[in-house]
C-alpha cells in the first residue's frame, strides 16, 4: 500500500508518522511483502543453496512466511525453496541442488505475516 506524503504547510499528523513507524515495526495482523531471488551453484547433489532475506520490520516476532516461485521457476534444484530461521529481522530461503550444476535459481514473492 503506498504511503501518504505530507505537503509543505500542512500539519503533520500522528497518522503521517505512524505509517512510517508501522513499516519498521509491524503490528499484529499486518504483513510485509517483497521479492526474493535465490541463486547459486551446486557442487554435488543435495548441496545447500541459501540466502538470508532481511525484513524492513524489526522487533516484532513474525507468525509465518510464505514464498512462491512466480518470477523464476526452480532450476537446478531438487524442489521449490523452503524458509527457515524466521525472526523479527528476516528469514532464510534455501533449497538443495539437484546435481553438479553452476546455475541454481528460484525467485518470486514473499509475504511475512505478523
Amino acid at each position, binding site marked *: 500500500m503506498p504511503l501518504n506524503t505530507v505537503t509543505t504547510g500542512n500539519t503533520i499528523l500522528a497518522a503521517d508518522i505512524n505509517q512510517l513507524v508501522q513499516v519498521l515495526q509491524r503490528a499484529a495482523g499486518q504483513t510485509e511483502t517483497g521479492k526474493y531471488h535465490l541463486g547459486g551453484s551446486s557442487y554435488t547433489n543435495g548441496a545447500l543453496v541459501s540466502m538470508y532475506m532481511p525484513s524492513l520490520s524489526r522487533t516484532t516476532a513474525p507468525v*509465518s512466511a510464505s514464498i512462491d*516461485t512466480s518470477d523464476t521457476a526452480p532450476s537446478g534444484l531438487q524442489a521449490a525453496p523452503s524458509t527457515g*530461521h524466521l525472526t523479527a529481522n528476516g528469514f532464510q530461503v534455501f533449497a538443495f541442488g539437484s546435481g553438479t550444476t553452476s546455475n541454481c535459481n528460484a525467485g518470486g514473492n514473499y509475504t511475512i505475516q505478523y
Partner: protein
Amino acid sequence: MLHAIYEDGTIEWACTNEECEFAEARLSAHAEHATVKYLPVSGKRGAVIALPQCLCGTQTFLKADYTRKELLSGMFRVVDDQGQERGHILKLGHVRNLLLHHMLHLQGRAPEPLVPLPSRETLVRMLENGLPHEVALAFWWTHVLIGEQVVMLPGFDSRLLQIETRANI
C-alpha cells in the same frame, strides 16, 4: 498464518498470493497429514512447520522455534476504557502455531515446544467457563511466560521465595 484449528485436527489458512484464484478461499488440511511437516534446519534454532502448497505454488511456513523473549514480545497489552493496563495476552497467531506444534509433537513428528500444554483438568475448567480453546490456551501460555518472567527478574533470588514460603507454612 493459520486462521483456525478445529477440534478434529483440521487446520485452515489462506494463500497470501493476491493474484491466486483461490486468494479469497480458505485452504485446509489435517494436522496428521504428511504434507504438514515440521522442518528442522541447521543449528539449534530456525525450525518451521511447512503447510501444503497452494495450487498456485505459494507455500506458507509457520514459525516453530520460539524463544521466551520472542513470545513475550508477541503479547498484547490489554487496557481498559481509562487507559489502565489490565494485563497481557499472547497473540492468536502465535497461539495457533504453538498448538499445531504440540499436535505434531503428540504424533511424534516434532520435538516438544517451548511452553507446555495445560493439564487436562485446567483446560476443561477453562472451557467450561465458556472460553474458546484458542483463547484458553492464550491465557494459559501468557500465565506460563509471565509467571516465569517474574521469577527470572535480575536480582530476584528464587531461594528467598522458597524460604518465605516455608516460613509461612
